């Protein structure tokens, strides 16, 4: 039973088929990789899955629910969380508040309760703080909770982005090049974190990555995208050893 099931997803920009007939089935709890050369359309797939772009064709099902033409905000509410290639944090907010914005839809009190500081405000804010700290501790960010997110070092910004997304309690986590700009040590640490998240949050993860070490190290299955089309899908080692994939990356 697939958690995410995508059929025939396509979009064109000014005549160019940026993504053409994209299909993918991801099972619950899977760690799935989406790879391909630059400009292959990987991030466009993410943008289609999260409603940033509306697809020309195709259906996206999450847990059998059709989320194809929903708004970004509603797709998140249905259970899809994502991070961005170029980190998008709330830079002027504190690390803690970044995560608390992620908790927004899980803890409800209204504007008046907030402005008048009624008991519900106090109770829920306390719960939000506890929950946020719990997440920050997972990513070893609790020491920096009061810092502005923009002042974090690069590697920690990537982690915070993941923590913020997890705060929305997604079923499916989309990571867009989580290891970009990290050194080998940081990448190794990140691999462990991703595995930890999958195991401890019972998360299904789809990630875009260029770092082959990371991909071969943690992904169970891969889909390779080239010029907007799927080149091959399958079990990681088989895909990476396929001659077509090597050609796509290295050229003829």
């Amino acid at each position, binding site marked *: 039973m697939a958690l995410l099931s995508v059929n025939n997803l396509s979009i064109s920009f000014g005549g160019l088929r940026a993504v053409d007939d994209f299909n993918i089935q991801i099972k619950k709890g899977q760690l799935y990789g989406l790879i391909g050369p630059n400009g292959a359309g990987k991030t466009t797939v993410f*943008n289609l899955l999260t409603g940033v772009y509306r697809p020309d064709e195709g259906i996206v099902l999450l847990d059998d629910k059709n989320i194809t033409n929903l708004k970004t905000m509603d797709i998140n509410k249905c259970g899809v969380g994502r991070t*961005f290639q170029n980190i998008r944090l709330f830079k002027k907010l504190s690390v803690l508040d970044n995560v608390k914005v992620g908790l927004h839809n899980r803890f409800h009190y209204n504007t008046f309760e907030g402005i008048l500081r009624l008991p519900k405000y106090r109770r829920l804010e306390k719960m939000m703080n506890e929950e946020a700290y719990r997440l920050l501790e997972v990513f070893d960010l609790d020491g920096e909770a009061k810092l502005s997110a923009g002042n974090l070092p690069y590697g920690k910004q990537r982690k915070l982005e993941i923590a913020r997304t997890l705060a929305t309690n997604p079923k499916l986590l989309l990571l867009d090049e989580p290891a970009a700009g990290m050194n080998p040590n940081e990448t190794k640490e990140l691999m462990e974190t991703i595995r930890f998240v999958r195991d401890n949050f019972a998360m299904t993860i789809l990630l875009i990555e260029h770092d082959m070490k990371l991909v071969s190290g943690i992904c169970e299955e891969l889909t390779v995208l080239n010029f907007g089309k799927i080149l091959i899908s399958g079990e990681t080692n088989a895909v990476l050893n396929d001659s077509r994939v090597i050609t796509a990356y290295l050229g003829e």
Partner: protein
Amino acid sequence: MISLITYLINGISLGSVYAIIALGYTMVYGIAKMLNFAHGDVIMVGSFTVFWGISMQGFNPVLSVLLSIALCITLGITIEFIAYRPLRGAASSLVVLITAIGVSYFLQNIALLIFGANTKSFTSLINFGPVRLFEGQIIISGETIATIITCLIIMVCLTLFIKKTKPGQAMLAVSEDKGAAQLMGINVNGTITLTFAIGSGLAAIAGILLCSAYPSLSPYTGSMPGIKAFIAAVFGGIGSIPGALIGGILLGVIEILGRAYISSQMADVIVFMVLIIVLLVKPTGILGRKLQEKV
């Protein structure tokens, strides 16, 4: 019927002034991606220079006009260099807009200190008489004719400049992609300076034409026409030169008709409503293109 034709002609004339001002907005917006809020006040500086030259110093009108254009060009280049260039690459577009508001404030208050708040009466520079048509039923003033002709000449020259000359092509390239243009060896800063120079020179001409037709001059003369010309630029599609012409003339006609048939106060309301409706229905204006943020 006759009065309607007269209003239309007046509208086209006022619209031509808007179009000339709108060119400055649209070129700067296309190339520097900023709303130069102070552009309207450059108009005022242009008019005051001519007023100062003719009425206070007794200069020859031609000399005064040339002086005014030269001063406005210098002013435009200076403003860009001091206030806008350091902010290129700043985090938010708000920053440049607020700075431009500061420059606008600055120009208004300098004029206020030099010339005082009293409205000056501007002597028209157009010395050929009105043209009478249909046995005197339609009277077209010299100012109207001069304005429309000037506007057409400017449009043709500017289009030729951009299509046929190297600096013009450089402008197109910079408006398309600043980074790529730089890599192709185009002097981006120089091109932006040139854009401000042309826009400000045109503002001087627009100021003189505006004050010839509506001969009252104060430090705030430029701000309302400036805002309306920006609306014209948005109306026609920001970044587009023919768009500025179309938007300017449509807006001028709408304003004059509104003033004639509804009320002068409601005319401004209508002009602003036009902006809002255009933006809601077709945010890119009549001839504009769409931009989207990359995710």
